[in-house]
């Protein structure tokens, strides 16, 4: 027992991981080389790399979904990072109510995304929704939110921003609390402005923390599913159809399992690629 404990303790977990994570992943990779409609009685047919060739060259809908996914991620994560760091700088002091602010910040991240999307569907309603009412109150023209193909992706990104800006804020806040005090003191003596302090000291020192935060957000934003599916299901007229939504419909509306699997592999490759880029950024300077 003594010598074997280190193998026995993690064994059940790795058995389960093997069954529920590793096996499906390899199955999907294998399925991506086949042509198979789960709705038909014909067995899977091995077609090699044909699914991938279709993804890369012969499917404009996938190409659109690819750029849309990247666009959505870049917009959402950029806004979240900017707002998040701004709020962290604002909250980075002792003040009455800081605990309450922290508590409130956690709630959007944990609240059930389906329920939140549902509330936004109601708030976004073009004629009866509270959002357009608020816009008209401040004198802005009404917007079409998720109800027009021109604005749907932005309206969904706004929900993502609402949910996840607090994560960047909290991570950045923890990072700010760990920064050394000396550089600021000497900068003050040298007569640096508050903006210079932020731009030349805070941001560079905070960078490693921020890159990790951005990495986490980027991974999840690329995989965004719940809020899009509940609010628009990819519409109107495919305007919010990201890779995840397209692939879900291929798999579970058309039962085109082989092709959907190859898209799943492609999505994984994209996420992995972006992870690697961000991890490189972490090491190299700006």
């Amino acid at each position, binding site marked *: 027992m003594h010598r074997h404990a280190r193998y026995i*303790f993690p064994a059940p977990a790795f058995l389960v991981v093997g069954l529920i994570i590793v096996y499906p992943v390899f199955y999907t990779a294998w399925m991506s080389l086949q042509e198979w409609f789960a709705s038909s009685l014909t067995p899977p047919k091995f077609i090699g790399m044909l699914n991938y060739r279709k993804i890369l060259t012969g499917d404009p809908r996938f190409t659109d979904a690819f750029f849309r996914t990247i666009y959505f991620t870049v917009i959402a994560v950029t806004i979240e990072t900017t707002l998040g760091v701004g709020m962290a700088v604002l909250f980075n002091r002792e003040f009455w109510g800081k605990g309450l602010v922290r508590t409130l910040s*956690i709630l959007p991240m944990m609240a059930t995304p389906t*329920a939140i999307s549902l509330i936004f569907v109601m708030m976004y309603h073009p004629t009866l929704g509270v959002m357009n*009412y608020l816009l008209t109150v401040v004198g802005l023209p009404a917007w079409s939110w998720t109800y027009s193909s021109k604005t749907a992706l932005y309206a969904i990104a706004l929900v993502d921003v609402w949910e996840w800006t607090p994560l960047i804020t909290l991570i950045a806040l923890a990072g700010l609390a760990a920064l050394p005090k000396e550089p600021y003191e000497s900068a003050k003596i040298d007569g640096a402005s508050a903006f210079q302090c932020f731009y030349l000291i805070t941001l560079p020192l905070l960078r490693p923390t921020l890159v990790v935060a951005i990495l986490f957000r980027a991974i999840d934003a690329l995989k965004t599913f719940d809020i899009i599916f509940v609010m628009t299901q990819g519409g109107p007229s495919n305007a919010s159809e990201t890779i995840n939504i397209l692939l879900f419909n291929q798999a*579970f509306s058309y039962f085109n399992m082989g092709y*959907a699997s190859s898209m799943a592999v492609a999505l994984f490759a994209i996420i992995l690629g972006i992870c690697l880029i961000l991890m490189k950024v972490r090491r190299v300077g700006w």
Partner: protein
Amino acid sequence: MVANKQFRQFARTAGFYGLVILVMLPTVFVFFWMITLSLKPQVEAAGYPPSFFRFTVTFRGYVEVFAKHPFLLYIWNSLVVAAGTTLLGLIVGLPAAYSIAQWKQQKLALTILVARIIPGISYLIPWYILFRNIRMVDTYTALILTHLVVGLPITIWVMIGFFEDIPPDLREAALIDGCTDYGAFWRVAIPLVKPGVVATAILAFIFSWNNFLFSVILAGRNTRTLPIAVFNMIGYEEINWGPLAAAATLITLPVIILTLIIQRHIVTGLTFGAVKG
């Protein structure tokens, strides 16, 4: 002069708090809107212009949710699946986390981290085919096993941190006193990380409770969980917003209460792997 200085100080504090309230307003407003909408009668819920503070309070929305839909069944389903996932996650996850922390099995930890990057759908396609073939779609087992894809990695990763905080001398002392490795784990380590176990269990529970993607495919008539039920209600209720908001409130409320209990550990849970990955 003094009055002027005091006034400037006051203005700065007021400005600061004004800004804090302004940036927190959207967060609060969505929850405020959800709850007030759920308490409004139909005419006022979908009335224009919307009323913010002056409206008739009614619980008809909540009554309708339970009257028109088998909502108690959905709540029960969500509870069973989330509790099952949490329990199973702890049973296999705790020893694994202990082992990784104790014997520095970093490679094992990294393997689990990869699971976070892989898109959920790449698990779902094989799971769906498998469960369809063995006629297990629409069973608790299928839902619990798939929810573990999220629950188990989070259990292991969050618990590694807690186990690493235990001084190594304690285990050695226990072993010298004649404890087996099993005893050192169960009687020494576990009591020390009890708060961590509670936090981890709640995290795993919430993630299963919120899960939409796996349940929308694998839950059927008998095992439909709350997020799927609410999603289906959107088409059914049209702009009957009172019951919709009531359903949304009913799902979110338990999550909010649980979140408040473990708020210190939420960010750790959401960014697992950040420190050691």
